[in-house]
């Protein structure tokens, strides 16, 4: 993995968030005019329970360097248990990704409530810093671009 020119490297990060807590929390960050890094693009889901693990992989395949997954704190889920289901899914998913050698440090899980505008800003900044440190996820991008590069001249 190349860590060269990290100063010029702007991580591309996709945030998968639930509508009721984290999306609203990020709204509050805005309303509070708390500034944070521009690297994150937010995708709104009704609930963390809705977030398919394949969408996370799709983000990496499409060139994301990092991912944020965030929803309601335990017991605060708008749908009572979507976040609990999601939490289990992520536990299992993380363990599988780790077995495969996929860099689980690049997926940041968090609970951010609708009241935690500042936490959202911190989460984004912290994740951007982590990913900047790790560098672009070239390993994965290279594999994603296999047909374009590697196999073309076979």
């Amino acid at each position, binding site marked *: *993995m190349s860590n060269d020119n990290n100063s010029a490297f702007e991580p591309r990060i996709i945030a998968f968030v639930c509508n009721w807590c984290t999306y609203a929390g990020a709204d509050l960050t805005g309303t509070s005019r708390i500034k944070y890094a521009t690297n994150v693009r937010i995708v709104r889901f009704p609930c963390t329970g809705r977030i398919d*693990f*394949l969408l996370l*992989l*799709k983000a990496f*395949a499409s060139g994301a360097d990092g991912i944020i997954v965030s929803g309601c704190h*335990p*017991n605060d889920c708008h749908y009572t*248990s979507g976040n*609990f*289901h999601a*939490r*289990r*899914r*992520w*536990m*299992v*998913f*993380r*363990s*599988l*990704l*780790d*077995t*495969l*050698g*996929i*860099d689980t440090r690049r997926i*940041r*899980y*968090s*609970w951010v409530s609708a009241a935690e505008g500042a936490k959202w800003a911190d989460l984004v900044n912290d994740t951007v810093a982590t990913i900047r440190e790790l560098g672009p996820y070239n*390993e994965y991008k290279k*594999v*994603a671009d*296999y*047909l374009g590069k590697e*196999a073309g001249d076979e």
Partner: protein
Amino acid sequence: MNNLTELANKLLGDGTATKVIGYEEAHGKTRPCFCTEAADTGRLVLDERCTNNIAVYLTKPEIVGGHKVAVTATLPVLRTMVQLAMENQLPDGTTAIVSTESGEGLAVLPTVGDMERVVAGTPLDISGKERELRERLKAMSREERWQFWLGEMSRCIKCYACRAACPLCYCTRCIVDNNCPQWIQPWASPLASMEWQISRVMHMAGRCVACGACKQACPMGIPIHLLTLSLAEDIQNEFGVAPGSVMDHGNVLSTFKPGDKEDFIR
């Protein structure tokens, strides 16, 4: 006439079954076979050479449609049948024929409850060889694991023998055949193969009975069963659900406990 043939004939004779799914000997190995009448049953064998998971046929309408089925079940097959029953996939009235513990005699298990009892009494034992492979994988650094799997996935030809051989991959339409959206690229490439395996293994979470059919089927010899085994081990550690054990309600991923671990969520 051996005992198995006799028993199969009895079940076919008394109407307990109209088709016996079993194993026959061929080319120095065994393979699945199907018997619908007494004249067929002479070829049935049931011993340690029977490694195909023939429960795979229980979800094929072409095979079981219109039949009452008896399966000569090895332990992995029996574990699969119990799991299929949990998932509403075991055809009504399916009977299992198993070797008794001593290995000498045969027993008929007419109900899922009977099958569950045998399965519950025989916890899964993962062989030393698999354990060793997993340990070796665990001892690698993340980068080494990535390179290892990338190399393996590059050899995948996307024939989906792993899917076809797995008795718990019974979806009418597999996710890889869904092109709205195209979840997984349909052509062979390391990424598509990896995404497919991730999907497959996630879909097996808490369901896999660790029979090894996927690995056995792979014409390229890719050790994909290590993925399901590793996940099964993690699930056992995390949720106390052993592979092939009977959950009374739902699935590992369709249920939760409020106290599930969340130290990775910050």
